[in-house]
């Protein structure tokens, strides 16, 4: 929709240009979120796309994958990388987790036409519980780089970036710069499950399991909780342990896309499907994907 109170668009070329950001001046990436709601408090936008950040960069200098090959690269995703670009990224050597990138793109409520403009960073910054880029970044234990307004840089786990339903670690004037995915996570086996109140509806729960090459297991629970919740184990837990830990999560929420009690229950179902899928000794597969 037209943002009728916006009087200026500044095309950012340097980090200094971000100094204009403030209560009435917001950063603009794809625009699919900003232009989808009235923004009567805004008088200006600073276009981040003109900063020219490379969308996707393979990183090879910090291989901690433990695969022994040493060839498995990590991935740096610019905040301004579109979801379409991410969805088309080909697999690099050793990226067992590669299918997860596309799977998470499909969890976006918006259509593939939205993918053409919506950005990975914008999705994280909207900080909706159902934000699939939050799910992805958290599940892969990515680290986000924040450009603080004072010129400093700050890194933090993606899982800590989103703090609640539409709240995050950014303060006014800060900008999310990038998401760094470690090679070790990309080398892991992953299992993805999403459920909504309709077949392709806005996510009611998105659960991602990641079984690292060293057998450690992380289950990331999103969309049903107001912020990402991660359950970590030294190895795949048994069904009872996992079910108990899901049941113990305390930040389920209710909105038009599902009631809290249902989100908790179906997260238990999805978690067990994920556990079973990643358990090499248990070949029974679920059918909820």
């Amino acid at each position: 929709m037209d943002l009728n109170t916006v009087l200026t668009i500044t095309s950012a070329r340097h980090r200094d240009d971000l100094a204009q950001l403030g209560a009435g001046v917001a950063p603009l990436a794809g625009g699919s979120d900003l232009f989808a709601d009235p923004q009567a408090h805004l008088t200006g936008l600073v276009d981040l796309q003109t900063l020219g950040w490379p969308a996707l960069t393979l990183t090879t200098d910090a291989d901690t994958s433990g695969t022994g090959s040493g060839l498995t690269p990590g991935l740096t995703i610019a905040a301004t990388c579109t979801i379409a670009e991410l969805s088309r990224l080909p697999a690099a050597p050793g990226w067992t987790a590669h299918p997860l990138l596309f799977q998470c793109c499909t969890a976006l409520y918006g259509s593939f036409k939205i993918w053409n403009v919506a950005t990975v960073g914008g999705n994280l910054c909207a900080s909706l519980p159902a934000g699939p880029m939050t799910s992805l970044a958290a599940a892969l234990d990515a680290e986000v780089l924040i450009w603080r307004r004072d010129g400093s840089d700050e890194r933090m786990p993606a899982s800590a970036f989103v703090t609640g339903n539409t709240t995050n670690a950014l303060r006014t004037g800060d900008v999310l710069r990038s998401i760094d995915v470690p090679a070790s996570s990309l080398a892991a086996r992953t299992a993805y499950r999403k459920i909504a109140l309709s077949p392709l509806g806005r996510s009611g729960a998105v659960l991602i399991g990641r079984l690292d090459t060293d057998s450690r297991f992380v289950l990331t629970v999103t969309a049903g909780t107001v912020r990402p919740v991660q359950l970590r184990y030294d190895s795949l837990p048994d069904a009872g342990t996992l079910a108990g830990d899901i049941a113990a999560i305390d930040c389920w929420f209710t909105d038009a896309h599902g009631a809290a009690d249902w989100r908790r229950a179906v997260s238990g179902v999805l978690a067990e499907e994920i556990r079973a899928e990643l358990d090499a000794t248990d070949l029974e597969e679920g059918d909820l994907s």
Partner: protein
Amino acid sequence: MRLQLNGEPVDASPAPGQCLRSFLRDQEHFEVKKGCDTGDCGACSVLVDGAPVHSCIYPAFRAEGTQVTTVAGLGMPGDLAPIQRRFVDAAGFQCGFCTAGMIVTASTLTETDLDDLPRLLKGNLCRCTGYRAIEDAIRGTHTPVNGLGPVIQTGPRHGTVGTSLAAPAGERVVSGQEPYTLDVTVPGLLHLSVLQSTEAHARIRSIRTSAAAALPGVHAVLTHGDSPATLFSTARHEDRLDDPDDTLVLDSVVRFRGQRVAAVVADTLAIAEAACRLIEIDYEPLPAVFDPHAALLPGAPLVHGEKDAGASRVADPARNLVAELHGEYGDIAAGLAEATHIVSGTWQTQRVAHTHLETHATIGWLEPGTADASAGGERLILRTSSQVPFLVHREICRLFDLAPERLRVFTARVGGGFGGKQEILTEDIVALAVLKTGRPVQYEFSRSDEFTLSPARHPMQIQVTLGADDSGRLTALKLGVLADTGAYGNHAPGVMFHGSSESVSLYRVTNKRVDARSVYTNNLPSGAFRGYGLGQVIFGIESALDELARTVGINPFDLRRRNSVGPTDPLVVTHVEGEDLIFGSYGLDQCLDLAKSALARGNDVPVPPGAHWKVGEGMASAMIATTPPRGHYAQASVTLDSSGTTYTVRVGTAEFGNGTTTVHAQLAATALNTTPDRIEIVQSDTDAIGYDTGAFGSAGVVIAGKAVLAAANDLADTLRSAATETHPEVRAAAWTLEPGGLRSGETFVTLAALAERAGSSALRGVGSEDGARRSVAFNVQAFRVAVDTRTGEVRILQSIQAADAGVVMNPEQCRGQIEGGVAQAIGTALYEEVILDGAGTVTTSVLRNYHIPLLADLPVTEVYFAETHDVLGPFGAKSMSESPYNPVAPALANAVRDAIGIRPTELPMSRDRIWRLLHPVRT
């Protein structure tokens, strides 16, 4: 900013915060539609350098240097792209408002993409079709209508009744060239923005408008001081006394959050919105009530306590009671005493939003008067998105004290309605603004306005008690209805009475009792919605019947067979219905058999693997009168043009995706024995024809169509007489009409010759219809479903609808109406709910929080037609636009009950609700 737009250079500067959608419309590319303005519906889809985007969330400035392609850039009438051609041929649209964006999106799909079509089309919403025809258009396929074979085309020649003529506007719709309400450039146009109440119930102590009025570019600030003092109802009916007069254009009391409080008219929408933000309102909060049960209790806050019951036609303002019905036929106590089986239950339906893709909108302006050139005789013109332009005309004249000739109301093609446009929601305030400023004024609802300001479907609590003997014969039917009509009583009486009508009279029971009430609350108003109350009550009654069949131990189809009215039975609610309602034909028996055998035949959709999937079947029936009661009037004319090549049909009813225009062309072509390309239709304009009650109550074919047929027959007679004047030796009755002229043996007179001879006295026929006699139509829906007991997911494995539409005028189009009705009802049954927070605030105020069905959500419904011939409808036709919706929710609920052993009693049967039925909290 420079760009290439459909290959043409454009050099224009967007506003900094402007989106591409409105920028393209500023360039008069009206093929780019607004359905939501939030990136959810896809109606605005365009290509930017070949990539499809939702132009409503695309910053306009980013189009600099790009190539932008709209649907018009893909092809134009006469030179359509293959994908556009396929949408015409497959009837891949009804109202057509989503079509431009749908086609732009589809144009980017490759052969391999088709495997992923549900996902790739999830950003394109269609409210009319149910998507089967759209999918056929995209794939270039034709899905069989049912398991029995193709629908019989009964017409003698393509284009006549009984054949599947494509919509006359098809080529324009698929290229975005068919104008809708706002697709017009009006010089000097001002824009109107409305300030909505933040209070659920309050008196306005004061409104400070000086800052708003002082803003440069503001032409008027309208408050309750500017409003006519005449009470009216936003609801429109043939008899204006049907609805309570409880509404003012602008009121000093607000009764729901979101109600119109003030309006600003300004040079631009941006200025109007800015001015609205400068208006200061001092509210005196009043106690409010949000629960319809609480509203009836003694001491409840009174929503319209000051109204005069008689003058406003409110049953009891001191009890928030808008309307009530209490009546008994036979002896309900005796009937229950006689029963060996009694079932009883309570059902609850939710608020549903119509979600027509074109939001409500009106443009108004003044023109120099012609007929009445007396003192300052200017004429007010309203171009509006309405199902009822003539009824709007009447009421606007009444409100503003205008002589009828001083007002013209017309519609362009209307982008969907479903009952939501049987209201005055924009026309009144635009009329006020135009009369105040003397300037052209536009008011366009946002999608959020639709959710927070326009009436929703009535939520109802339905209590049903049934008694039956051991054979399953009903001995008692007792119905209780409590409807929440919200803050205003528009459609409250009508929906309550109609809801309790054919739902009850469908069954032959010697003892019946109905107690129905419709009450005010401080919630969003409720209004007219497809089915007009029947769907809600049928949900309760057909669910109860299903339970009864289980209790008695007979098949639910057999239970209906045993108890449904037959063509010789009286139709009884609480007394025998009036003699105007007859069985002009009867096809319920066929519908029951068709649905039952289709269900038995099954289909090849497998049950998902796993023991947690439970399978069940269910069915439900519905009956509907083919016309609203107490008069529904239509006038029509057909004129041969001066060249003798084209017939012009003038008719008052509106085209909003119902397809009446197509059928009218077929009716005229059949009566005049010509081809449909020689028929032009001018419609829904108070200047075009004398009168039409409007496009509601499924009246487009059986009322307006009958008037068109009468007019065409009248013209045919006129042409025969005119031919005899040229050849006195041939009797008038001996002429046979042909496309080019009239023939009698070897003698042939061309239409051109007759037209030339007639000169300025045009050859014209007229017809009218009054709806004095009404028939009934039937629909039976059946489902086979699988339910995931772990998650509550309901998966539809087979969907069947059998319909008694009389002689089907246009098989593909009628099929589309049924598919669309089933689709909308599946949305109601499984997904849709306008949620309020309990204090009057709508929390589902954007489309992404209100889930209407996507292609991915819907099965292909098998459609079966009963073979009947109605004595009232044109060529034996019956109405078939509201009724397919009505039996769907109970049929689905009955199937879910069959699958899981627990009866859902609340809509929507969302996954969380079904899951909760299966996993109740242990206490």
